[in-house]
């Protein structure tokens, strides 16, 4: 026994750690801080989010001010550092403002869908039997359609607009999240520690809120964070098709759509919104990878 005591983080004296209650999240953050790639992605995302939040103070020009004279100026033009679009609006300002809508369209559906889909999935996974059957088969109906097609179909049916776009994205993301939540819950439910919890007299509600949720929330959050990039891309796609955000509002997808016609004249300008979408979704993906390894307690 004594040798085990020695090898187990031997340098720290007993008394120091007694009062310190180490939380799971502290450990996660400690591991994250040692992962340079994830930290870089987090920094880029933080910068994009901050820029989007403080857009009115940061944007050098009015993103909606058109000018027939300075249309499609190349990047590097004094006063318009990233050039102008086909209506002479400042690209930099529009990209900054566009981040607001694009991020909003990326986050909101995923957050709402995580709540709804996660709840449904955990209920289905823990209850099993008929309840599982009812919930999961209903979800399979949605699953039958490709996600982009489903989003287009729903927002097409509801009509263009931000709210309708959000609703369609939420409906698109509920099934995959519920599916992940259900499969993780089913896995956890059959583990010995759930039975052990029952053997120490824990009630059903207590087992779900304590043991099941805490074991399930990690995988669900990780999966959901990878969906944010998908959501940005689909939202951009909806705007591109004229189903999400409508002009003249700035949104990366919408900008990509309108600049598409100018791609032979000003290719760099036309590609810029795409670069923003790519960077943001890439960072979200890499960060969710980093989160997954950081949240694995056994890692």
């Amino acid at each position, binding site marked *: *026994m*004594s040798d*085990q*005591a020695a090898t*187990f*983080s031997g340098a*720290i004296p*007993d*008394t120091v*750690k*007694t009062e*310190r*209650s*180490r939380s*799971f999240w502290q450990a996660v953050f400690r591991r994250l801080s040692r992962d340079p790639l994830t930290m870089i992605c987090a920094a880029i995302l933080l910068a994009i989010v901050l820029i989007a939040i403080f857009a009115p103070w940061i944007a050098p020009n009015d993103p909606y001010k058109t000018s027939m004279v300075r249309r499609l100026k190349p990047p590097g033009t004094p006063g318009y550092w990233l050039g102008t679009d086909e209506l002479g609006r400042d690209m930099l300002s529009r990209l900054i403002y566009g981040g607001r809508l694009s991020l909003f369209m990326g986050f909101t559906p995923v957050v709402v869908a995580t709540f709804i889909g996660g709840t449904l999935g955990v209920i289905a996974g823990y209850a099993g039997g008929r309840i599982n059957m009812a919930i999961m088969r209903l979800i399979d109906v949605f699953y039958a359609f490709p996600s982009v097609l489903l989003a287009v179909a729903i927002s097409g049916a509801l009509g263009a607009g931000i709210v309708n776009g959000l609703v369609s994205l939420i409906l698109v993301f509920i099934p995959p999240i519920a599916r992940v939540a259900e499969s993780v819950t089913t896995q956890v439910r059959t*583990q*010995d*520690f759930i*039975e*052990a*919890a*029952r*053997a*120490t*007299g*824990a*009630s059903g509600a*207590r087992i779900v809120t*304590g*043991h099941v949720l*805490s*074991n399930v929330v*990690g995988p669900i959050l990780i999966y959901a964070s990878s969906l944010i990039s998908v959501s940005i891309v689909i939202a951009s796609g909806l705007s591109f098709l004229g189903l999400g955000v409508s002009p003249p509002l700035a949104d990366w997808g919408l900008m990509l759509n309108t600049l598409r016609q100018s791609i032979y004249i000003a290719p760099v300008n036309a590609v810029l919104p795409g670069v923003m979408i790519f960077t943001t979704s890439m960072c979200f993906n890499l960060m969710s990878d980093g989160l997954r390894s950081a949240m694995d*307690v*056994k890692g």
Partner: protein
Amino acid sequence: MTNDQLHGASSGDAATSAPLVDVRDLSVRFVSRDMDVSVVNGVSFELREGEVLCLLGESGSGKSVTMRSLMRLLPHTAQLGGSVSIGGLDILGMPARQLSTIRGSLVSMIFQEPMTALDPVFTIGQQIVETVRCHEGCSRSDARRRALELLELVQIPSAARRLDAYPHELSGGLRQRAMIALALSCRPRVLLADEPTTALDATVQIQVLLLLRELQRELGMATIFVTHDLGVACEVADHVAVMYAGRFIETGAVGDVLNRPHHPYTVGLMRSTVHGGQRGTTLEPIPGAPPDLRSLSTGCAFAPRCGEARPPCLTAMPELVEAAPGQTARCIKYGAATTYAAAGTFQAAV
């Protein structure tokens, strides 16, 4: 008083107090759409405070299911029959809500695999604190103090630090000790141990066994041990019940059963086990495989593998009868009827 009782012939002073655990004719069937298996077929025993009963048997003999029935920790497909009473409470007829109040406090359980039986995302301390608070409703700091006492009780070195350790940060032996601490956290009167040392290596096994025996004596718990390891049984048990195909086939004090087995299965079990003074001799395995519980014959379940089987063995399941003072065996040889002695062996009959 039937012969099925384990302590029918136990000493007088123990018989005066009411048994803490009283199991009568327990049967467990797993019924679902495509299966109907009788796993436990009429098990009866009594257990008093401070006694240790060891359920011995091979895989699938129903020993774990018997033990889990004591806290009704079975899947929904299980149908239980007979009666189980612990501390005067009827376990089988109890509503689910009341059941969760007695689990952990009246009856508690140690699992076989401490790695999977502890929740990986909570520290040892958090798990014990939660259980203590759930049952005793005390403050977090009181519960933490109790958790610390418990870790010291199960002899975990530098207990204060281990409270904040996650299960994966502990070695197998320490993890099992933590599991024991968790099981003892609400002062159970009956402790169930499901092969608590199977997942551990040999040197740690004996440490954990000695600890369990010590704790059991110190806290005066009635304990039921499930194992297929005869060495473990010798080490901890007062009484042994050998199970085969969901029935007790031999019961008695540990020394009597292991030294003078009566049932042919127990005899075979002893012959096929390595123990002292056997160098150079060949072990005699029991031929055949355990019976298929889905299609049990009407006769003695062990008869197809039994070297002493005679035609009457196949007609009816023998009762558990007294084979020696304080020792019972479910074999026709020891029954009152003389059909066995009268019948010839199979070779002679065929």
